[in-house]
């Protein structure tokens, strides 16, 4: 197995909205993936105006054995608002990628929805698929993601309760450290995901020698 295969087996493509409303779910999602020693790959991890977004997404999907697709935000909220198609579109690319050769056939994914069976109204092709619901609750999302990795055979996975507790402690350290660096609430709320991911990685590295 070469190093890119190793990366492939730890990479988790995250397909979710990146708007402010989703941040309360995105933060614990990224934390849980990193805490379980996997590597989240997201479309916003590098910003290059000259790079076609779809190319970047296809590349991330191809280099990730695992994917987490949150399709809880695809529904329009008011009259005249468009249905959000990016998430189901990227889910389709990911499922299609499994038809490729070699390691691509080992790809596996978790699909998250707000309420159980909601997705069937919009994507009936996914009927009979095992889709998990998080009810827009961050702790439930941690529970679902952790249990998914455990069901895939991850050994000695910490409990969801422990991950949730450590996430809360991380949030305190995150705020304290950033405030010392002059960050205000607004800076913290809209911090770019790659910067946030790096902070989690540093925090986990420091915690590893303590009581992770």
């Amino acid at each position: 197995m070469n190093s890119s295969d190793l990366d492939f087996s730890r990479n988790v493509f995250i397909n979710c909205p990146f708007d402010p409303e989703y941040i309360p779910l995105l933060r614990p999602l990224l934390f849980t993936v990193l805490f379980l020693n996997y590597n989240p790959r997201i479309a916003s991890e590098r910003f290059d105006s000259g790079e076609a977004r779809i190319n970047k997404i296809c590349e991330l999907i191809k280099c990730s054995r695992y994917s987490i697709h949150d399709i809880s935000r695809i529904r329009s909220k008011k009259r005249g608002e468009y249905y959000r198609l990016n998430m189901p579109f990227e889910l389709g690319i990911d499922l299609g990628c499994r038809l490729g050769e070699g390691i691509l056939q080992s790809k596996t994914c978790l699909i998250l929805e707000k309420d159980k069976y909601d997705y069937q109204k919009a994507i009936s092709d996914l009927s009979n698929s095992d889709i998990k619901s998080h009810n827009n609750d961050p702790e439930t999302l941690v529970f679902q993601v952790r249990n998914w990795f455990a069901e895939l055979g991850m050994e000695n996975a910490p409990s969801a309760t422990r991950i949730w507790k450590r996430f809360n402690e991380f949030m305190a350290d995150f705020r304290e450290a950033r405030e010392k660096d002059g960050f205000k609430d607004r800076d913290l709320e809209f911090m770019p995901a790659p910067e946030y991911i790096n902070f989690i990685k540093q925090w986990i590295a420091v915690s590893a020698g303590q009581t992770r």
Partner: protein
Amino acid sequence: MAKRSASVSAKSQRVHVISRKDGWAVQKEGNTKASKVFDRKEAAVEGARKLSKGHSDVIVHKKDGSIQRWERSESNP
């Protein structure tokens, strides 16, 4: 992060009020189990203050884990 690790001993005394499925947990940092779980958040905050006795920070979290309020202890004003 280096600054953070230097303050580990003070940090470990923090008391958190954390949202859980079964209510609001009062939890000392570093402990694996919650000291107590309350039905109401206000009661949990009061429980955290009693546990800290003013000697450690009380950190009240929102349901999403972010910080709602940070009550500094006498030793960490």
